[in-house]
């Protein structure tokens, strides 16, 4: 179990025709598991890119992402998939549920194709859905759920395998302010209950202010960090 995620000299470039665009410039930062971290910034600032690199969904052009002592750049595709399965839960702005699966199937979907006892994870999925207030919605398709319900299913899916980290990319972007508020409170509760680190990307400043730590990013550079945790302090 990693207590921190360390970004060392992370740079992300996108190559276009005769043009190379830098999405992130030399990011050095550490995230602690006991913190609720919010990353804020305007659209196109690079916050989602940063989250996808932290979540090992993308590879940095240069630099390294360390989970504790584990250098994720040294993992092959299968090891990375296993790593994501075991250590990371992801929640997206558009929920990204599998449309052909019911709520409970979506929650169980990370286990599909893995040799785990089906009864165990079905029971766990039900518990999570119950916990998130979706007890009567086990067999509803995503199209039959509201935005808030879909987002809760997405959280349940992200948490079903007890990850160390929950990464959420604009999870309240498609929710009204009341649902966004409820959602944030839910995350706080889950963090307390499950003890997982949370990194939340949002452009909602009001929501971000409730986090333990706020990192502001602009044009691919970190321009503010409320915590100022340094690499040196961890060594």
């Amino acid at each position, binding site marked *: 179990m990693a207590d921190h995620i360390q970004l060392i000299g992370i740079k992300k470039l996108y190559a276009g025709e005769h043009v190379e665009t830098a999405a992130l410039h030399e990011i050095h930062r550490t995230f602690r598991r006991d913190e609720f971290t919010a990353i804020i910034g305007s659209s196109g600032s690079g916050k989602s890119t940063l989250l996808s690199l932290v979540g090992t*969904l993308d590879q940095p052009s240069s630099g390294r992402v360390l989970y504790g002592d584990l250098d994720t750049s040294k993992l092959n595709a299968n090891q990375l998939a296993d790593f994501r399965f*075991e250590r990371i839960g992801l929640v997206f702005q558009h929920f990204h*549920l599998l449309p052909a699966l019911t709520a409970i199937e979506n929650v169980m*979907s990370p286990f599909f194709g893995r040799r785990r006892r089906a009864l165990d994870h079905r029971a766990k999925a039900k518990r999570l859905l119950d916990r998130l207030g979706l007890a009567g919605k086990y067999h509803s398709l995503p199209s039959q759920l509201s935005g808030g319900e879909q987002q809760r299913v997405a959280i349940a899916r992200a948490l079903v395998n007890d990850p160390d980290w929950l990464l959420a990319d604009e999870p309240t972007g498609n929710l009204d302010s009341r649902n966004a508020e409820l959602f944030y409170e839910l995350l706080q509760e889950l963090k307390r209950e499950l003890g997982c680190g949370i990194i939340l990307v949002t452009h909602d400043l009001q929501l971000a202010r409730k986090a333990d730590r706020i990192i502001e990013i602009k044009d691919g550079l970190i321009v503010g960090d409320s915590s100022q945790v340094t690499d040196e302090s961890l060594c």
Partner: protein
Amino acid sequence: MLSMIWSNWWRHKERFILLLLGVFIISGGLSFLYGLSESNKGTVMDTLQNKWKVSYDIAVRPPGTSFGDEAAGLMEPNFQDGITGGISMEQLRQIKQIPGVSIAAPLAVIGYTEFSTPLNRSITFKDFGVYRLKQQVTVSNGVQNQTSTPSTYYDSYGPSDDSESLLSTNDPALLVGIDPVEEAKLVGLDQAVVPSLISHYFTSTDTSRVQVFDQKMAGISKFVDAPILISNQNSVNKSYTFQYEKLDIPYGTPEQEAELIAKVKAGGGVNYLDKIQSVSSNTVTVNVTPAQAAVAQEEVMMKSQADPALLLFSQRAKALSYETAQSPYPDRWPIAYRLKSYDTSDAAARDKFPEFYRPMDKIVDRNYPYAYYGVGLKVTYIGNYDPAKLQVSKDIDSLFPMDTYRAPSAKAIFDSEGRPANPQATIKPINNPLGLLTSPPTMLTTMEAAALIAGDRPISVIRIKVAGVDEVSDANQAKLEEIAEAIRAQTGLAADIMLGSSPQPVLIQVPKSGSQTAIGWMEQQWIKLGIALTLVNEVKLGFSGMLLLVILIAVLYVLATNMVSFLVRKREFAIMLSIGWRVSRIRRCS
């Protein structure tokens, strides 16, 4: 994962139905195309193989003999009928012992005999007298009518004679020796015997023996007893015209008979009668149909079984000679020949046969100067066989001409002036041993008899069937090459592979010969050795290519549907990746 795949299908019914429809269309289409391709391949291969099917795989012939145009690999149809002996029984035994040879059927082309056929017609004389009969034979070769010079003989009707004179004719018939056991295996000759009380196939009791004469027996050195199986097919369209004239001689009393005999003796025999004028004349024409010929043969057969008939040999079977000619239409007929015409000083032959495209070669015993007929035969006709019942290719499409029992044919294309023939008549055999197209063997005898007649090397051709070779293929060709090479090495004989041969139309210029005018140009199907193998291989390659294309289309379909599926479900796959699915599992799921 399976439940997820099923859910994905079940909850996208319209997509699933389209997928199923696509699967049915593509699998049905592929099955149809594959079936069509295989069926076409089978049809083409069958056509190729049946059309040019021969009943044997290798033809063995004496060294130095020609089968047509060896340089061009072109074989003349029924070439074996032009080879008179050359292979010994010992060489046949050697060939039979070569591994892989399942049938070795020898063919000993001995020569032509004069075969007497009753015509089942008679002339009834009304008045007592001496009659001069002139027999003239008219044969149609399909393009020309060929009429022989009339032959004359005399008959008389008196108080002690019958008023009826039975008509008969002497025709040349090709005698060929066979091995009854091998021939039965090769072409089912035993099954082709026409069932009748007096007709049977060769048995072990049908033996031969030779009777040698001293010099007092004029004309013949020896007689050979020979069992004969006779064909019931008459491939020649013939008509006989008998003209009979009553001579101006008093005849009807014993005194007049005695007086006539004295005058004939004093006047030089037949020469005396030739000079006497006739007082009346009548004509009888007899057309012989195959059915009539068969009935006539029954009669001959019955008589011979009671009292063997005596036959004399007249002529060896000889091959035609060709020289290369300039084709008038090389695009259509790239290969053309000019047929050689011969002349003969034999007056009897000139009277009897109007054309000479083969050299005269009378069968004589050179050790016995008086034996101008060489060998005589005492024949017992043991049975009739029907060539149509032989197990050789009788497919209507079968163009392969080289079967021992099939009458050769050709087609008149241009007249001697180069004008196109219209219609293009079929040129048929005329039963002339020296003529353009000769009939297939009429009389078959045993190899034992053939050896007694023809001497040490009686066999002309050995037809070989190799075990396990039933279609044209490279493997079979290699097998035949190996056996042919073994035959050449062990016996010194020439061996030609017949499997995989195909017809090649050639143009032949037929010049004037004897009393016949030039036919002009005729087209005949010769045999190009080995070409069908190339064709069959190309057909196989073509259809394999088609099959490959069908498979390629199927692969393209699968790739295209996968690509479409990937593009449609790209977002889904990204989600799966994000929740920890391995790429390999996503690939299986897609």
